[in-house]
C-alpha cells in the first residue's frame, strides 16, 4: 500500500486534506512526502482512525460497500486482460499495445481501490482464485479467437460503465469518493470506446460505433442482459423528457442519437447476476 499515493490522490479533490490531518499543513506534507520509511510503514495501523478524525466521522458503510463492489469488478477485468494478453491471438503492434494499456489501466484501478479501501479502515475484497472466462461455456473461444476476445471485452467494458453509473448515487456529496469513482467511470468509458473502435477497424463488426446505438449493438446475442435491465440502453426517456421529441439538427432527434447520447445504469443486483457465470460473484 502506498500511503503517499493515496494522500496525493485525495489532495487533488480535497485541497484541505493536510489541513484536516493537521493544522500544521506544511509540516504534515513534508512528513508524508519525505518522512522516514519507518514512519510511513507505521501509518497504516492507525490510518482508519486518522481519516476518521480528519473527516470528523467514520467512512459510511455504504461508501465502503460501493468501493468493494468496484474492486470486485476491477479484479475480474484486470485478470481478463492479463490472461487475454498472454493467451489470446491478439495481433502484434497497435492492437497488442492497446490491450496491454487497458490491462495496465485496470491494474491501477485495482491497486488504487485497494489503497482507498484500506485507508478508509476496511479490508479490500480479495481477487477470486479462479474465473471462468468462457462464462460457463457461452464464450468457449474467448482466448483462442481474437474476434470473440474483443466481443467479450466490449461487453465487459460497457457493463463496467453501467455498473459504476448505477451506484454513483450512493456516493452523493462524497467529494473524495464520488470524484474518484466518476474518474474511473470515465476511464472505463474510454476503454469501451476504444475496444468498440478496434472491432470496427478489424472488420469484426464493421458498423459498430464507439457509443451504444439502440440496445444490444454488440453482435453478441448472449449479451442482451448487459444492454438491458430496469433502465435499458434503448431508453429514450430522460427524467421525463422524451429525447426523440426534442428538436435536432433537422427535424427531431433520431432514436439512434437519443440512445447513443445517454448511457444507462445497471443496479448492483443486475451486474452481479450478469457476471456470475464468469465466477465473479
Amino acid at each position, binding site marked *: 500500500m502506498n500511503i503517499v499515493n493515496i494522500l496525493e490522490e485525495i489532495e487533488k479533490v480535497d485541497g484541505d486534506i493536510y489541513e484536516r490531518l493537521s493544522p500544521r499543513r506544511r509540516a504534515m506534507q513534508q512528513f508524508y512526502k519525505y518522512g522516514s520509511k519507518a514512519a510511513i510503514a507505521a501509518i497504516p495501523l492507525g490510518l482508519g482512525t486518522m481519516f476518521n478524525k480528519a473527516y470528523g466521522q467514520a467512512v459510511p458503510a455504504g461508501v465502503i460497500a460501493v468501493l468493494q463492489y468496484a474492486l470486485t469488478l476491477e479484479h475480474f477485468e484486470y485478470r481478463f486482460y492479463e490472461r487475454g494478453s498472454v493467451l489470446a491471438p491478439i495481433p502484434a503492434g497497435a492492437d497488442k499495445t492497446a490491450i496491454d494499456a487497458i490491462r495496465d489501466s485496470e491494474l491501477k484501478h485495482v491497486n488504487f481501490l485497494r489503497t482507498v479501501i484500506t485507508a478508509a479502515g476496511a479490508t479490500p475484497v480479495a481477487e477470486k482464485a479462479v474465473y471462468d472466462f468462457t462464462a460457463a461455456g457461452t464464450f468457449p473461444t474467448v482466448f483462442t479467437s481474437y474476434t470473440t476476445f474483443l466481443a467479450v471485452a466490449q461487453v465487459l467494458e460497457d457493463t463496467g460503465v453501467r455498473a459504476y453509473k448505477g451506484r454513483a448515487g450512493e456516493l452523493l456529496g462524497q467529494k473524495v469518493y464520488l470524484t474518484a469513482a466518476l474518474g474511473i467511470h*470515465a476511464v472505463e468509458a474510454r476503454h469501451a470506446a476504444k475496444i468498440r473502435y478496434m472491432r470496427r477497424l478489424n472488420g469484426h463488426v464493421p458498423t459498430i460505433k464507439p457509443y451504444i446505438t439502440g440496445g444490444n449493438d454488440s453482435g453478441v446475442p448472449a449479451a442482451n442482459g448487459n444492454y438491458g435491465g430496469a433502465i435499458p440502453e434503448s431508453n429514450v426517456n430522460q427524467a421525463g423528457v422524451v429525447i426523440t421529441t426534442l428538436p435536432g439538427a433537422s427535424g427531431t432527434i433520431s432514436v439512434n442519437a437519443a440512445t447513443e447520447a445517454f448511457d444507462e445504469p445497471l443496479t448492483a443486483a443486475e451486474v452481479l447476476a450478469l457476471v456470475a457465470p464468469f465466477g465473479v460473484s
Partner: protein
Amino acid sequence: MDQQTAVEKNGTGDSLLEKKIHRRKFFKFSSVAVASAAFIASCDKDDNNDGVNLGSGDVGILNYAYALEQLEAAFYTQVVANAAFSTAFTADERSFLTDIRDHEIAHREFFKTAITAAAASSIIPALEVDFSTINFANKASVLGTAMAFEDLGVTAYNGAGYLLKDANYLLLAGKIVSVEARHAALIRELITANTFLGDQVDTNSVNLSRTPLEVLAIADTYIVTKINASNLPTG
C-alpha cells in the same frame, strides 16, 4: 515535459488555451467573484451587469452543464455545416462528427427542457460563441478543438458531480459524462492511435477533474457572453 507531450499539447492548442485563461481568468472571473461577494447580496439580480448568472444549487450546476453543451453543440454544428466538411474528412470521420453533433444537440435540448421544467425563471439564455480561432476547413484544427472540448467536458462533469444534492441529477450527469468520455476517446483515436487515455488520467488511471471555475476559464476563450459563476456551490 518530453518531446512527445510538447508536440501533442501544441497540436491541440491546449497549453495556449491555458495560458490565455490565466490572464483572462484574472480579469473576468476573479473580479466577478470578488465584486459579487461584496455587492451582489445587496443588488437585485436583474439590475446588475455581471453577466449571465448560472445561479445556485443544483440548478446552477445544471445551467453550468447547459452552457458547456451549448458550446459543444454550436461547435459541431459549425463543423458539419462548413463547406469543406465533405472534402476535409473521410466518410468515417464525417459519420462520427455528425453523430457527435447530434448527441451534443440532444444534451443541449435536454438541459433546456429539464431546467425549464425545474426552474423556468433560472435558466440561462442562449450563449454567444466565438470560434474565430478555429479553422473549420482544416482537419487538424477541428479535431484538435474537438479533443480539447471533449476532454474538458469530461473533467467538468467529474469535478462537479459531488456538488449535486439530488441523486437524480447526479445520475443524469453520469449518463452524459460517459458518452463525453467515449467521444473524447474516439476523437483522440482519430488524431493518433492509442491515445484514448493520453494525458487525461493520473497515475492511478483515474480521469482528471476540474472545478467549474477552472472549466469556465478555459471555455471562456470561445464564449462571448459573460458568465457569472459566483453563486455556484463550492462544496
